[in-house]
């Protein structure tokens, strides 16, 4: 990677370039690179090759390092039997929807709380923040019962993407992050816009949002991760095979399938996300760095 000599960190740059420091630095770097490769790539190598082994070979002692009789059929089986394309599509669809809903509704709410001073604003914010301490698991049963039969409207949201999107909007952490960021935007800017006759919506659109790109990026990353990582909630509210997410689908599939095929499915499922991460790596990192996450 590129040498960035700009910022000074825990240990001074110069110290690492001289004598003992230099030796130590390179030794440590080598150890870490080798160690991390083993710890993080090792299992993945095992996964990719393990999925190529036959059932007999997987159960063999000691395990073989290379598949002796590669069975690419396992990957084909995984792709077709599991309908992975559909599962991946579902997951991305839910993730994109979750990002949109959270960006629109949470940003609007945070903007209102930060700049527009609604009635009971602080009380509402307090109530929202109180939910931060309540893990999803505590509410899983009443939330599930609510989604089955929405109060007043009496709609059943099971198998509907809204059962994933709307509860995710109720995310106090995002509102907190966004509001904190908006709070740091000088009021002068707002006042100037007001003098120019801009409406709050216009101010938000043309002044606040362009300044907030990093924090919006952070919120988006969190939204995508939440959908990607969640398991029990989608398992409950997306019961039919057509609407499952990847994680739930693989779990459901694992019950009646040889494990090499399950692992093959896992490998395939991971590929698109790895690509997305590699492509957006720089944006994600810079988003996290500038996204008001400093201590």
């Amino acid at each position: 990677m590129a040498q960035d000599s700009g910022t000074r960190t825990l240990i001074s740059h110069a110290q690492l370039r001289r004598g003992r420091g230099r030796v130590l630095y390179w030794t440590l770097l080598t150890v870490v690179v080798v160690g991390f490769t083993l710890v993080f790539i090792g299992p993945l190598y095992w996964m990719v090759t393990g999925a190529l082994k036959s059932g007999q070979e997987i159960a063999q002692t000691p395990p073989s390092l290379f598949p002796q009789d590669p069975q690419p059929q396992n990957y084909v089986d995984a792709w077709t039997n599991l309908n992975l394309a559909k599962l991946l599509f579902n997951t991305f669809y839910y993730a994109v929807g979750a990002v949109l809903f959270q960006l629109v509704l949470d940003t609007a709410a945070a903007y209102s709380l930060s700049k527009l001073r609604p009635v009971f604003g602080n009380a509402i914010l307090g109530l929202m923040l109180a939910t931060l301490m309540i893990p999803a698991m505590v509410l899983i049963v009443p939330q599930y019962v609510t989604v089955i039969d929405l109060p007043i409207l009496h709609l059943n949201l099971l198998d509907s993407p809204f059962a994933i999107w709307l509860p995710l909007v109720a995310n106090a952490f995002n509102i907190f992050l966004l509001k904190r960021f908006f709070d740091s935007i000088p009021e002068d800017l707002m006042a100037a816009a007001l003098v120019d006759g801009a409406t709050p919506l216009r101010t938000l659109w043309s002044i606040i949002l362009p300044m907030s790109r990093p924090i919006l990026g952070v919120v988006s990353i969190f939204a995508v991760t939440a959908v990607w990582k969640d398991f029990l909630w989608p398992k409950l509210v997306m019961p039919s095979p057509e609407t499952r997410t990847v994680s739930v689908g693989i779990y459901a599939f694992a019950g009646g399938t040889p494990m090499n095929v399950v692992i093959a499915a896992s490998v395939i499922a991971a590929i698109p996300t790895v690509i997305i991460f590699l492509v957006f790596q720089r944006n994600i990192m810079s988003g996290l760095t500038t996204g008001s996450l400093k201590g």
Partner: protein
Amino acid sequence: MAITTAPGATGAPGRPAPPYPSGWRRTSLGRKVRDNLTGHAFLIGAVLCFAVFSWYPMVRGVVMSFQRTRRGQTTWVGWDNYARIVDDPSFWTAWKNTFYFTILALVLGYAVPFLVAILLNEFRHAKGYLRILVYLPVMLPPASALFLFKFYAYDPSEAGLFNATLSALHLPTSEWMQSPGMTMPAMVIASTWMNMGSAVLIYLAALQNIPGELYEAAELDGAGIWRRIVNVTIPQTRLILALLAMLQIVATMQLFIEPLILANGAGTGDSATSVAYLIYQHGFFQNDLNGAAALGVIMLVVLAGFSAGYVRLTAKQD
């Protein structure tokens, strides 16, 4: 701490005047809302979502925990559900396991990513590569990552990766998920491996924002590496450390998918049963949603007590 006690955060002192007039006239509530229609309209979407999917379920959960529904008939049963839940021999085991996991996860899953981030931040080479490595497991679907551990790493025979390695090194092997003593540590290892990437990235971001002069000043004062971490790095990342500590604890209290996949549920002799798994077990295996709701309320009370203590603790430090 900032998140729960000071909603205003940065804007708290010397609040600037609101750009749109609202409070200075004595008006009715309806008038206030009408005067600031946009402000309230912007708020309404998120508030509705909170109301329907967060605040209302909280109330509903408490109500449900005092009811019982059988064949479509709902009746009030007082504390029956609580009595039944607490009476379940798995109840205490589940709490013990959950706390044990939370503590182990704090030691391993919380400290390790911070140290890794400090280490990675020092390197001037292979930075991007290492960063991607650490983040790779996060990109696996969680079920996949756990199946990987279950099938390959934790296989109790010597066909398993861990046991094969251990026996090649002439070290004692373990039955991992089948040995009650190893169940929790094994789950923490798997959980840390698959989740630490996000924490490392967030710490790295925080570390990059520490002004270099602080380290220089500390070094001039004769502070060694360790003292510099304690006196500069930690105070400078205090807020993010506190935030992640809380998020981590709340997350580990919900331990669910690890026992479900790695231990096929309860594990051996309830050694993997977590409170969250017990909620699931009551609600969806034993067809007892009311009992599950009661257990949820108990969990809520425990966490509320915990967070009250936490807020007092951090408030004192400030």
